[in-house]
């Protein structure tokens, strides 16, 4: 009888994945100043589990499933500040410095007035194996880190489905939709 119970206990424990989380950024210095924080961290085990529960029948979920196929970890941090200037350029530089330069390259840096977006990628053998975005606004800071192979075009299209209109042609884009 004891063995039966032990076997049941072992089986139920095996059903629980380990909750280890992986985010290479230490953003405590930013978090300390933020009014609100959104933290979404998904490790490899959680992503694998999510992949099993994403439906292939639904368009956005099948896209998400294909996007996640080569991804090992995702880390998203969104900070909202009470007022402008809560975080300094030095704080931002400390975030950038956490992406080591030989492996990580900044491929895009767009700056408009007080808003900036930077896209970093890590490339190995001609394939993107890591992706990071640091988007800074006066009262908001977004940091995204994805470990693994990901199709940036697909990811951007996927992001465009979340209430952001499709990218207009350059000559048509007079105003950034935010």
């Amino acid at each position, binding site marked *: 009888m004891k063995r039966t119970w032990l076997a049941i206990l072992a089986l139920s424990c095996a059903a629980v994945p380990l909750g280890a989380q992986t985010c290479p950024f230490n953003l405590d210095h930013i978090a300390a100043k933020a009014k609100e924080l959104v933290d979404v961290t998904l490790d490899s085990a959680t992503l694998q589990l999510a992949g099993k529960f994403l439906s292939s029948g639904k368009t956005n979920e099948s896209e998400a499933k294909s996007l996640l196929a080569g991804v090992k970890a995702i880390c998203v941090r969104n900070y909202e500040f009470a007022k402008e200037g809560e975080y300094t350029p030095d704080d931002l530089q400390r975030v950038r410095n956490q992406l080591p330069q030989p492996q990580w390259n900044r491929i895009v840096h767009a700056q408009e007035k007080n808003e900036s977006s930077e896209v970093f990628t890590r490339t190995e053998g001609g394939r993107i194996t890591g992706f990071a975005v640091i988007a800074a606004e006066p009262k908001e800071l977004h940091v995204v880190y994805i470990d693994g192979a990901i199709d940036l075009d697909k990811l951007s299209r996927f992001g465009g489905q979340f209430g952001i209109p499709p990218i207009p042609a*350059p000559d048509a884009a007079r105003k950034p939709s935010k």
Partner: protein
Amino acid sequence: MNLKDELRWAMRREEPPEGFAERVLARAAAQADAPTRQWWRFPRMRLAAVAACAVLVVLAGAGYRQWQGETARQRALLALGIAGGDLHTTQLRVRHILAARAGATGETGGPMETR
């Protein structure tokens, strides 16, 4: 016989039959001495209880697994949505800057790195 007499007759004191108290006490004593038959003393009932517990544990595990999967699915969609949204916004920003620059200089296109 009037009502008063009828009531008096109906409520008259009547002695129990001979040996009534002894019989009651004897039966009570006999019941107390009888072996109790609790359900868990039956092997089949014990087996059924264990099986029911096992089914409950398995169902609870499956339910928890389902909940974990659904949570992971929602979090993955949210994370991809935010990541894709930030990338998309960056592209919009770049296009806006390039368009503004092209409008100012009468050119189109340009490098991605723009400041």
